[in-house]
């Protein structure tokens, strides 16, 4: 294997958060961001073709090694404790923040029709949502948005990867609701 590709693999492996090609490029003198991006994507292909227990994904603006999902039950057994999971209230609140950001609490509450304080607080604590600042209107309400961690947790490269909101979809014929 080419030296650069090896090093890129090692760097992504040791990084705690998704590692961007840009950041890696800062370390090298004789490799461009483009070379690195190419090496990393080749690696991702290698892992996919190999079909092992690991995969290399592009997420949150960088690259990260992850386990395949079929291994999840065993990993949970190894680690013990409950798997991380979000309640419906949290997921709905998160969805509104993700699609409507920068967004005010009052707007989230208007959309969901309920008080969202507790859900919002939980999302802030989980570092999925962040405080972006204040809006320059009377009362200067706090503006919320999603974090990089949000992209990482949901395996998104960036916000544009979120599926389009099916806002005007007909409701009739939509059966089998509820979270799966």
């Amino acid at each position, binding site marked *: 294997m080419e030296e650069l590709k090896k090093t890129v693999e090692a760097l992504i*492996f040791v990084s*705690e958060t998704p590692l961007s090609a840009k950041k890696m490029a800062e370390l090298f003198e004789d490799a461009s961001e483009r070379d690195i991006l190419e090496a990393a994507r080749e690696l991702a292909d290698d892992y996919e073709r190999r079909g092992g227990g690991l995969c290399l994904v592009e997420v949150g603006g960088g690259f*990260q*090694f*992850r*386990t*395949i*999902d079929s*291994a*999840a039950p065993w*990993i949970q057994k190894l680690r013990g404790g409950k*798997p*991380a*999971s*979000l*309640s*419906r*209230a949290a*997921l*709905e609140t*998160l*969805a*509104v923040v*993700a*699609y409507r950001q920068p967004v005010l609490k009052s707007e989230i509450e208007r*959309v*969901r*029709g*309920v*008080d969202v304080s507790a859900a919002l607080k939980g999302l*802030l*604590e989980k*570092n999925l949502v*962040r*405080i972006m600042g*204040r809006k320059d209107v009377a009362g*200067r309400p706090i503006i919320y948005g999603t*974090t990089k961690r949000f992209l*990482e*947790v*949901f*395996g*998104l490269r960036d916000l544009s990867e*979120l*599926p389009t*909101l*099916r*806002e*005007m*979809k*007909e*409701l*009739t014929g*939509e*059966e089998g*609701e*509820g*979270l*799966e």
Partner: protein
Amino acid sequence: MKEGVPRLRLTRLARVWSVPCIMDYRIKLDVFEGPLDLLLYLIRKNEIDIYDIPISLITEQYISYLDAMKSLNLDLAGEYLVLAATLLHIKSRMLLPVSEEIDEEEEDPRADLVRQLLEYQAFKEAAIDLDRRKMLDRDVFTRREACDHAVEAPEGPVREIGVFELVKAFQKVMSGLPTADLNLDISADSMSLSQRISEVLDLLNERKSLTFEELLGEEGDRRVLVYTFLALLELMKMRVARAFQQGPYETIRIWLAVELEGGDADWKN
């Protein structure tokens, strides 16, 4: 709550809807995420076209649902009652005779509610989509650093920190104080004052002395004007700044009462 539980409950709910009993209502209660969710459920259950909701029927079902919850002494969030009132209002408007001429221009009384329902429905689906993704630490996992305590490197950049972490830290510190000290009223205003104090200090440090007018004249904004004045008072109270006036009607001049630390760029940045 375990994953998958909501779906399970909803299925069960659909099955038992026609035979209400205490346990079922209890189950139903935490299935819904609010009044809109309940309304969507009723619409779906009755196989109604959302663009043409039979308001009487839905209102009746919605209210009898709330009654059932109340009779069980279950906590009923105010939001449920607000929607009940909205439904009754729409119902009464639908009963009014509509004159032919304004018919075209006047919007269907249900239009707002339909828009709200459709919007909520879209986000509900988006939430389901999110939940279906491979979620980190639930479906997929990454390596964990063996021991990564926040060790402070004396130099080097600081990681970006969320504002929430800072507030939490402050909350934690304050929670250890007697309530008299808590001063929960730290408002946006006092933060604006801090900001202005800092700016006035910088200005004084740069120029050594300023006239009152120069200081106030910096910004035209009335709010800033007030903050500037308050900042000045605060600085004088702290005995960092002093104001002198030669005589009545003379210009008021502000001075730094003390030398600021050297000319170190570090704290001016």
